[in-house]
């Protein structure tokens, strides 16, 4: 039935003016003229992270969603410009603290490419194990956030309990639960002996066993399926057009995974598949990430099975440096001598890594003279798929905003960097 709109002089509520919102005043007037109204979701809202979404709502249907990111922007790229190359490692783990190995790996691979350091095999395998552990941790973290967004508190508690196992593995390997800054140019800081490795292997089976409970109570729960099925659909073309990355791109049917494309560390030596779904709705995004956990588990088992013996710090670091200890299995004592005056040659190196939430890009530009980077560019996955996330909100119900937010696993600190 045709909507009759009477031309009543409407001026938007006074509270919108003092708030700095990144939309032109005419847009606000136009919204209120069409008797739609603006709901500001966030930045301090139980249902959205530290990001404000300006939702233009017509009744219960979302007409338009404008993101207002930047609340947790820590200007990491600027901070990186006055720190040594090695001192940037703890900085670049902080965007997504659970996914620290992947973020750390991206930055270190950029340095290694610039200095073309040869990383020993064992270090590659250990790095890959840590990266996969952090991937599972992030997938579980986002599954929990999705569960609590649609009200399933048990769905929140189970993944966080399972994540405790992953943190236990990381503590045994690196000494710290997650932001381990363990990966250094040329390898990793310490070797992980076999007792730790078979603890990790047993942990993978325990994670799988506990995931069955989580699957029965949340993943296959009919209420969850009802809430997530056909919600926030992104077709294949739309996903590509809006530049969605990672599991959310694979959920819309595009089979693209940087680990297969680049084959960095030792991913090309193990056999695992890329998980793809083609509905592109909230539920398939969630299922893709759940199946990726299984893929990661079997990557870890294969890696532990075939990990070669040998040293974990590459020899070309020790060459023209009088380091205090020359032990290729443990960096202790020689950390400063090897890395303090690390200078990258003039030029620019770029690396792509598959972080848990998608494509992660690092570009280091060095002026060849100073021991601090001239410019470091980091584009995190959250920032790349923010547009796709906002487009998928269009036409959905306001109550579904949280479900789609959770299915995208949007993480403001990572997107704002």
């Amino acid at each position, binding site marked *: 039935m045709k909507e009759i709109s009477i031309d009543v002089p409407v001026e938007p509520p006074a509270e919108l003016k003092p708030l700095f919102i990144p939309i032109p005043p005419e847009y606000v007037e136009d919204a209120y003229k069409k008797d739609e109204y603006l709901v500001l979701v966030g930045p301090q809202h139980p249902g959205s992270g530290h990001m404000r979404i300006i939702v233009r709502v017509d009744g219960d249907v979302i007409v338009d969603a404008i993101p207002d990111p930047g609340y947790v922007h820590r200007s990491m790229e600027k901070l990186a410009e006055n720190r*040594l190359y090695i001192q*940037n490692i703890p900085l670049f783990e902080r965007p997504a603290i659970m996914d620290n190995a992947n973020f750390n790996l991206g930055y270190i691979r950029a340095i290694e490419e610039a200095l073309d350091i040869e990383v020993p095999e064992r270090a590659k395998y250990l790095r890959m194990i840590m990266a996969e552990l952090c991937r599972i941790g992030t997938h579980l973290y986002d599954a929990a956030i999705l569960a609590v967004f649609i009200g399933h508190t*048990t769905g929140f508690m189970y993944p966080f309990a399972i994540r405790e196992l992953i943190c236990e593995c990381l503590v045994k390997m690196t000494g710290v639960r997650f932001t381990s800054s363990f990966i250094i140019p040329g390898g990793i800081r310490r070797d992980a002996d076999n007792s730790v490795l078979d603890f990790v292997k047993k942990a993978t*089976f*325990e994670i799988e066993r*506990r995931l069955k*409970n989580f699957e029965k109570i949340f993943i296959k729960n009919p209420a969850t399926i009802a809430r997530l099925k056909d919600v926030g659909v992104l077709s294949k073309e739309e996903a590509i057009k809006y530049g969605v990355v990672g599991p959310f791109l694979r959920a819309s049917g595009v089979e693209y995974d940087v680990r297969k494309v680049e084959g960095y560390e030792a991913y090309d030596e193990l056999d695992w598949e890329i998980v*793809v779904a083609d509905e592109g709705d909230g539920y398939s995004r969630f299922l893709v990430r759940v199946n990726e956990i299984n893929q990661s588990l079997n990557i870890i088992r294969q890696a532990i099975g075939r990990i070669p013996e040998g040293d974990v710090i590459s020899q070309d670091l020790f060459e023209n440096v009088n380091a*205090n200890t020359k032990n290729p299995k443990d960096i202790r*004592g020689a950390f400063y001598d090897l890395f303090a005056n690390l200078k990258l040659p003039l030029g620019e190196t770029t690396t792509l890594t598959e972080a848990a939430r998608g494509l992660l890009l690092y570009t280091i530009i060095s002026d060849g003279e100073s021991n601090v980077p001239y410019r470091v560019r980091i584009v995190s996955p959250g920032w790349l798929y923010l547009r796709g996330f906002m487009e998928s909100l269009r036409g959905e119900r306001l109550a579904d905003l949280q479900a789609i937010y959770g299915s995208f696993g949007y993480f403001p600190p990572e997107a704002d960097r």
Partner: protein
Amino acid sequence: MKVEKVEIDPISRIIGHINAISVGVKQAIKPERITVEYPRERRKLPDNFRGLILFEKDRCISCFRCAFICPANAIQMELYDNYYPSIDYSKCILCHFCVDSCPTTALKQTKIHDVAFRDLDEMVVHTDEMINPPKLVREDKITVEYKIDRELILERRKEVENLIVDVEPVERIGYHSACVNPQNCIGCALCARVCPANAISVKTEDEKRVLSIDVDKCTGCGLCVRECPTKTLSLVEVV
């Protein structure tokens, strides 16, 4: 690998409900709890855990490496009889770059992670407060360890774990500073001035300034090599 299709016909829905309720009831009867009741139980941490940092004064050669490498500028060198590190825990992110950089393992890690300070300036732990561990109030009687064989068991043992880890020092390649191109030297004796172990002595004999390095006193910290404006000195391996 394709994600399998999800069918939503009534039968699968009912099975879904039954499964969900069965998991809920099963867990209600026999929960697989992993909670550790923290103050009364403490979780066993591995020996390489990165906690509070302790310092051993007589091993330190005050080479400033820890202060230079700290990403958070948390380490400040304080002058006692020589320069020793003091850590400002309001800045420290416990990345242990300093512990890994210390050539003589004067900085050691411990398993103490639950540290409380009354106010901000107490967080600046001076050198003499870093030597022996802080006063620990230990309420925990049980140590819980994560053990997995067929499934995860939280093994609870009635013992109080010692949080101070004894770290065997790194076997260090001895270095000492030596003059490799004497003709560069301009006799400014900055190296003697900066040497913490005052191993470099300066004398003026008949119109000549004579510098000499006492090899046994020199600890190989490398400060003189960095300070010299004309690249005269360099570290040489003790053979």
